[in-house]
């Protein structure tokens, strides 16, 4: 292979944030091992080798599809021993490719996404973000429309009615993890039924992610394609209430739990019940259904992606000011760095090292929030610096609305005791097969890892499809049993 640089890649590399550090990559592979896209597209995407060819100045990579397949989850950056910011490096090169009219890579990437990734159109909007590099938004939406949506519409066929395998799979939760597992299993010839507790399917795709990031009609379209494939989605079924778990075990041979993490943490401070105080997921869902209003000044408490989404949504609903208050400093803020930047560009303000003490109301409505200033203590044994409120630093922030976005965790109450729950209130699974401690029950997505990215949920769904398929081909077609403690494969102390 001859390394020719017909383009001046050196020059563009010199403008990138981590250019010097680019050369310090010692190819440990941690980025690729952490990457959910590399999981879903092992033949097409490897961030480590892509970075390697870029640092060699190989101009061919500018035309490659690979450059457009990074999903911006930043997992690589968080774990890289040299702190190389791969998403932003690839972004700079995407822009350079666009400036030099190398769009073939983008179109090739769309085809690969369409063929291999569940919810391809939604993924383009939420994960791949080609519009961040291509200024011409119309070109992007048209390309996604033509190459993905129209294509899907023409090419999705129902799998033949003679099922390849008589086994039946039940999936609890119609979010991206559940539905991508459904798609995978349906394509393999299984009969799949998805149970959804609420009245509309799609999980966070519909409820949590704001409309401006992901148009809901696209989600509906891609769910319809799933129905065309033969996946049945039963809404308004609350497992544990309207349908007992025992009944499920009678009728189905394997179970995939993908109920996500939609229970909101509460602050537990005075005034949380006042009018004008919202909890984040509730706020976002209502905003998506256009059932909510905000006043001029909105304060958002929290530092994750949900908090940032709430802030940006608040502005779009007409608020004049949206301010995020976060208890640690900018370095520790867990939200996606690029989204934080976009939020700030839109006018969202962020104040750091603040702890809310109590919410002050007037006539039952929110008027202000009393806060304390924090300082960061020394790193504890886990390496994180704890925020410690400084005594006597109380101050007030006047505000009309408060959105509490301090974290979400799964609801696992409906699961049988045989399914072990971790201290973080997530479902414990074998990290390779996603099998729980209960035979025949698998789990994946936010219910296992806590709030995560879309791409991770899709990767989990794919893995669930593989694992359940392997399980069903190996096991006999008996209905599931609820195993007593002490029986079954592994039974530990199930923690609730």
């Amino acid at each position, binding site marked *: 292979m001859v390394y020719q640089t017909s383009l001046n890649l050196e020059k563009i590399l010199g403008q990138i944030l981590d250019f010097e*550090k680019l050369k*310090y990559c*010692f*190819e*440990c*592979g*941690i*980025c*690729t*091992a*952490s990457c959910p896209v*590399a*999981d879903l597209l*092992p033949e097409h995407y*490897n961030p*480590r*080798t892509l970075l390697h060819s870029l640092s060699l100045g190989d101009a061919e990579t500018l035309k490659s599809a690979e450059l457009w397949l990074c999903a911006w989850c930043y997992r690589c950056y968080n*774990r*890289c*021993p*040299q*702190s190389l910011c791969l998403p932003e490096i690839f972004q700079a090169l995407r822009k350079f490719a666009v400036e030099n009219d190398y769009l073939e890579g983008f179109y090739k990437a769309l085809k690969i996404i369409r063929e291999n990734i569940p919810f391809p159109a939604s993924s383009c909007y939420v994960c791949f973000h080609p519009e961040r590099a291509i200024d011409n938004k119309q070109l992007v939406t048209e390309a996604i429309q033509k190459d993905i949506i129209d294509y899907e519409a023409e090419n999705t066929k129902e799998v033949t009615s003679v099922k390849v395998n008589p086994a039946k799979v039940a999936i609890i939760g119609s979010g991206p993890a559940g539905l991508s597992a459904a798609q995978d299993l349906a394509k393999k010839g299984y009969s799949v039924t998805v149970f959804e507790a609420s009245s509309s399917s799609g999980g966070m795709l519909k409820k949590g992610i704001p409309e401006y990031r992901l148009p809901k009609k696209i989600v509906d379209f891609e769910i319809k394609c799933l129905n065309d494939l033969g996946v049945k989605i039963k809404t308004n079924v609350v497992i544990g209430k309207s349908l007992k778990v025992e009944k499920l075990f009678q009728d189905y041979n394997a179970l995939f739990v993908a109920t996500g993490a939609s229970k909101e943490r509460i602050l537990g401070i005075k005034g949380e019940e006042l009018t004008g105080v919202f909890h984040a997921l509730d706020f976002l869902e209502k905003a998506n259904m256009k059932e909510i209003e905000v006043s001029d000044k909105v304060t958002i408490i929290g530092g994750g992606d949900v908090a940032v989404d709430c802030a940006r949504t608040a502005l779009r609903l007409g608020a004049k000011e949206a301010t995020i208050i976060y208890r640690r400093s900018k370095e520790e803020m867990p939200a996606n760095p690029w989204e934080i930047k976009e939020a700030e560009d839109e006018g969202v303000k962020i104040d750091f090292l603040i702890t809310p003490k109590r919410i002050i109301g007037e006539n039952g409505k929110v008027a202000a929030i009393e806060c304390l200033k924090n300082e960061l203590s020394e*790193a504890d*044994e*886990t*390496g994180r610096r704890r925020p410690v409120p400084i005594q006597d630093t109380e101050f007030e922030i006047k505000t009309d609305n408060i959105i509490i976005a301090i974290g979400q965790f799964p609801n696992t109450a409906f699961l049988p005791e045989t399914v*072990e729950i*971790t201290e973080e209130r997530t479902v*414990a699974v*074998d*990290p*390779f097969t996603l099998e729980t*401690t209960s035979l025949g029950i698998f789990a994946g997505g936010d219910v296992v890892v806590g709030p995560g990215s879309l791409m991770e949920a899709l990767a989990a769904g794919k893995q669930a499809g593989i694992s359940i398929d392997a399980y069903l081909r190996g096991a006999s077609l008996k209905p599931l049993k609820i195993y007593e403690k002490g029986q079954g494969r*592994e039974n*530990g102390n199930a923690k609730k």
Partner: protein
Amino acid sequence: METPKSESKSNEDIRVGVYVCHCGKNIAGSVNCEEVAKYASTLPHVVVSKHNLYTCSDPGQETIKKDIIKNGLTRVVVASCTPRLHEPTFRRTCEEAGLNKYLFEMANIREHCSWVHLYEPEKATEKAKDLVRIAVSKAILLEPQEEAVVAVARKALVIGGGVAGIQAALDLADTGYKVYLVEKSPSIGGRMAQLDKTFPTMDCSICILAPKMSDVGKHPNIELLTNSEVTEVSGYIGNFIVKVKKRPRYVTKDCTACADCVDVCPVEVPNEFELGLASRKAIYIPFAQSVPARYLIDEKSCIGLGENTCARCKEVCGPNAINFNDRGEEISFEVGTIIVATGLDVYDPIVLKEYGYLRFPNTITSLEFERLINAGGPTGGQLVRPSDMSIPKTVAFIQCIGSRSEQKGNPYCSNVCCMNTIKDALLIKEHWPDVKIYVFYVDIRSFGKGFEDLFRRAKKEGVIFIRGLPAEISEDRKSHNLYLIGENTLEKKKFKVNVGMVVLSIGLKPRDDSGAVQRLLRLSKTSDGFFMEAHPKLRPVDTPTGGVFLAGCAEAPKDIKDSVTQASAAAARASILMAEGSVTVEAITPFIDSEKCIACGLCASVCPYNAIIVDKKKREAEVVEAACAGCGTCGAECPSGAIEMRHFTDEQLYAQIDAATQENADKKIIAFCCNWCSYAGADFAGVSRIQYPPSVRIIRTMCSGRVATKFVEHAFARGAAAVLVAGCHLNDCHYINANYQTKRRVEKLWKKMERLGLDKSRLQLAWISAAEGQKFASKIKQMQEIIDGVTDEEIKKTVECLSSTKRKTAPITLNDNQKSLEKAIGG
């Protein structure tokens, strides 16, 4: 060899010889040496001006010697590399030809010129001419000096009782010198005592160490002070006064190590030697082979001390060796040389959340592995999984933990981890051949003698090496097995591996208390946090401080062989000084003119060494030559011009400033750099070939404390565009704290410039260490932008304002002033 008599001073015919060195292509590559030599011949007093290929070589030196004799040269200037490298060389050359070695001066046209202006040969040549002119202007004013001779005590202090300290102590003691070996913990042995086997020989570590430890304990020339800490070091080379605090052991020398006390002690605490994997009692001996073989009481956990609540150990002690009233001891002694062998700490991987150390019981560190597999360790040599005490069926080693990473640990490579893991893998195979072993690595560094052989043996035994570090580890909550997920980078495939135990190959780091040792001895640290050697290639065990040497991991991560080698080297270096029995002190101390001295005491107040004694009654000040380090801070402080700093006189400094600002001063930065840090930092920029604008002219002083405000003002009065005063970082000053005076003086001058309406950004103050070449270059680049913006009016105004400041070489003779000064000091 007898040095011929040196020349006498003034009223002599000053005849200067200038030698411009090509240094192969190092200088000639960007500087036109012939042109510079030609230019030099036009300077006043220059009678010989030559250029040659390698001036420091034998033929080069011969040329100089011949010229001195043949042409009656009375001053020599060599324009070549940094004086920090070859000043001693050429000084010797002069001496051999009969010229006093203090009549020699160097112009640094390599590190400070040719190497940093590689792509601007014309400007580099012009700068080289300037630097030669500056050097000649000083040379003309140099005077011959005689060096004082100081006795060196034939005793040594070794700080640290690990294998390096032990080796150094034994070498010195065997040579016949008295050695004080001070060890912080209750026994010598250090890290090597904790290891099981050593690579590449697979020797039992404590078996090869114990005889040496025993030798130390028995040696008539070694005074072993364990459980002790050095609290103060004062003095200077050959004459260090050391204070040591011996912490109380509460057990006397009568202890026979019978261990009866251990059985009855009611207090159990974690055992530090066993890394918390086992416990010990409050009365204990660190490990079985401890030297001294004496128990001690841990005063933090013992409940009997001072409380009269428990005395069980005392009751059963046969030899009656327990003494609750032990208060320890503070002792003080004098030594001639010091060897720092304080060792290392290891990286704590708890901050690596993805690897689960301490969350998952079966994830251990490589040091914990040593204790587990050691027959004398907490499990009797059984490598068991902490979760269920069973032998693991599969073990995974993960390399580079805490090393080679900006984000997670330290950026350097820790030297020993690759070989340590290979050794560990072989140990497992030796005991349990069926255990499957994975090593997850980025590189395998098996560079030393016998290392590659050991690597091959490991592969032969079936150890599986996979290139790629796990991205995350999760745990099977029932079996406590560990799942590793990563990328096999050679196959470009993701791997998922289930193992019974994970060993994190942790890196080495400087000791947490190395800051204290640094302050004690005024040592410098390199950017990795280990102690800095005088020169990484040619003086690898010396520190910049005379008489203080380094050995072992205190200097950098290394294995046992290299530690021992370095220890013997340090002992040899120390022996040179002590064998000679004396050192000559550089003649750069101050001379105080009693006629001009008004006994104000300001000089004594700023002297970091308390080396000036002021007698107000006799109205005189006297310098204690042996205590003086030659920083020059007193000279800069004296208000009556009574102090002349030998070899760095006011007159010489003014001459250098004049020479530097002779032409195009408005395009130049005059930089005053201290010999130990900032000048060395500029040298390092040259060595690293970091390029910066050619507008700076560096004038060297020993310390930034020598730079009086009058010199800076004079530079501005001569029309200089900007002035840089650069010194060591505060608290790192080679002369303890002299740079605080520098800070004070520059701040005073800033205020003055503001008052006069001058642009004070033209005067910059920078703290640049010897390792900060990049910082020096960046500073010059920053100042270039400043001087590009300086207008002619600004320069004219500055010249006018500051020219009225007369050069104060005469004392304040007005009697009124004298009286008010005396009053101010309180008589």
